[in-house]
């Protein structure tokens, strides 16, 4: 559990905002990810939560080496992944796989399930020699709880939950060490969501996988994660163990986020103290100076506009938080056990 599989250092990803068609002029930068550092240990699940536009999906894309970082590094077992090419890059891609959010658009409708799951073997023939591919695919289908007989079916013949299982089987095909899950259950119904979450847990135990689990649903993240990172507008505002984040959050944004999650128990209606945030998330093109959360924060002082708070452990707390005034606050309302 001590070995770092992935280390992210000061990762920055900016996208240019351009104007004009022929003479493109860059008029600004979307600061999607702006200085994020963390590490992922072998066998653990790191949850990444945040609202839309906080940069969590961009983070996934950079981790997958689908985008080159503007600054900073992503190290896989000490190697900078953006510097790899050729065979080394191909070997890396085997080790980090992605499960996407939308099971409807992430599967090619013209390919059978067998082709979809078997396609990774075309690029990495060393994993499964030609003759053994179909049996490998059937094994994978069985592993994710689908009927191996359905190997010749097309994606439209499956329900949303089953398609997500196909996506998971495809990610597992090359026996990776890390799977980046980008909102893997948010498009699914509650009863199906639970099945897929159980499957992800089972597979992790079986293959010793490490997950980066990106989601906006805080209850889902808590259920699966060992550690949790909270993002806001391209910055990581707080990171800690699942317990530290959910039971003893110190950043005002984390506190507001947790308090806003509806609790599925009507008896806590009265006792729940919801922190109401005003307004919307500012544009990532021109984020506020200093602390990015200050425009919606009830604790904001002058210093918050001037100094960017560092993500560090502060007195009275046991985990890093990026707030000048970080302090503990009881948030989670426990439901009554009937």
């Amino acid at each position, binding site marked *: 559990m001590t070995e770092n599989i992935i280390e992210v250092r000061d990762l920055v990803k900016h996208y240019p905002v351009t104007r004009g068609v022929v003479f493109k002029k860059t008029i600004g930068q979307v600061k999607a990810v702006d200085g994020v550092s963390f590490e992922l240990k072998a066998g653990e699940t790191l949850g990444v939560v945040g609202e839309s536009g906080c940069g969590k999906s961009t983070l996934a894309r950079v981790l997958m080496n689908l985008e080159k970082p503007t600054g900073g590094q992503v190290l896989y077992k000490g190697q900078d992944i953006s510097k790899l090419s050729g065979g080394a890059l191909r070997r890396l891609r085997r080790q980090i796989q992605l499960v996407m959010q939308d099971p409807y658009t992430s599967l090619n409708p013209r390919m059978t399930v067998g082709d979809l799951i078997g396609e990774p073997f075309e690029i990495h023939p060393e994993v499964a020699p030609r003759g053994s591919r179909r049996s490998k695919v059937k094994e994978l289908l069985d592993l994710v709880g689908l009927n191996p007989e359905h190997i010749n079916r097309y994606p439209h013949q499956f329900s949303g939950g089953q398609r997500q299982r196909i996506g998971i089987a495809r990610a597992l095909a090359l026996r990776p060490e890390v799977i980046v899950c980008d909102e893997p259950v948010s498009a699914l119904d509650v009863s199906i969501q639970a099945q897929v979450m159980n499957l992800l847990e089972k597979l992790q135990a079986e293959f010793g996988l490490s997950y980066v689990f990106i989601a906006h649903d805080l209850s889902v993240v808590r259920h699966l994660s060992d550690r949790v990172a909270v993002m806001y507008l391209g910055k990581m505002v707080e990171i800690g163990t699942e317990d530290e984040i959910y039971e003893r959050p110190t950043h005002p944004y984390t506190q507001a986020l947790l308090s806003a999650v509806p*609790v599925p*128990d009507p008896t806590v209606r009265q006792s729940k103290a919801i922190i109401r945030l005003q307004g919307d998330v500012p544009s990532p093109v021109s984020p506020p100076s200093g602390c990015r959360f200050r425009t919606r924060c009830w604790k904001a002082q002058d210093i918050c506009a001037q100094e960017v708070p560092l993500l560090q452990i502060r007195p009275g707390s046991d985990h890093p938080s990026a707030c000048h005034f970080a302090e503990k606050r009881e948030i989670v309302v426990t439901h009554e056990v009937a």
Partner: protein
Amino acid sequence: MSEQSAPGADGSGRPSGRLLEVDDLRVEFRTRDGVAKVINGVTYHVDAGETLAVLGESGSGKSVTAQTIMGILDTPPGFVTGGQVRFHGKDMLTMSPEQRRRIRGEGIAMIFQDSLSALNPVFTVGFQIAEQFRVRRGMSRSDAKKRAIEMLDQVKIPNAKGRFSNYPHQFSGGMRQRAMIAMSLALDPEVLIADEPTTALDVTVQAQIMDLLGELQRERQMGMILITHDLGVVADVADRIAVMYAGRIVEEADVYDLYRKPAHPYTLGLLNSIPRMDEKGQELRTIKGLPPNLMNIPPGCAFNPRCPMAQPVCREKVPPLLQLGNGRASACHFAEELVNRD
């Protein structure tokens, strides 16, 4: 079956004092591949000042019921094959299009999940709200504009005057949802149907919108039908809950009763399968299998292939929605056992 499954209705169409009642509604979709029975005898009602949550997963028929109430069901492929929708005791399904149009907006209004596609992108938000005052109230352009700005103000859109002439794409998701609420409430409806109003929004914005809806509802004593799949949101705001599965109501209960002791195995399964933020559980208890294909609903109870309590009788007889007292009703052969267990 229809008689015994219709609480509060006597089938004669006589006014029962209810604001809005859906009575044994049946809708089917006739497609090239066959007939899908989407609504199979749905009965519920909502009174002034009350919030009824209609809970169900995709394909359970919760949105189609709402579309039928509003008279915006796509026909074809959708056809109403039975039942009534009574507003103040009068069946709307037999009304002329003109009569129905008069109810829409003033009697019953609706807000939708996807505010970007529900609003017209080529007109300003203000114009779309003011239009109702001009067309329905015969107001002048400037009076209508004034009223529209008031509405934007009521839903707490900052700088309402300036925002009046913005287009929908210039609003954020939360703001657009507010604008849609302003639009639906412009003509002071007695019933508001909210179809997944916060599903596309982030949690902090969701909390803002649910607060706003609750506040406006209390002020106006509106009846509200909240259609959702989110058991958390329901626990926060609902008075009563109707749980739908495969086009039927399988359970109806007061919100506290339902969460304390569900009287249908499907409701129990749903409650068990949500990950709770306050407990890092082991394995989630799931409902096995998949929802049924509506073109081929299993005989007997539609839930029987997924039900842990299923007995032979469940494959043979459709369980009627029976009253259990206290406003509770369950469509399970073993409802009594579920309620009486410890």
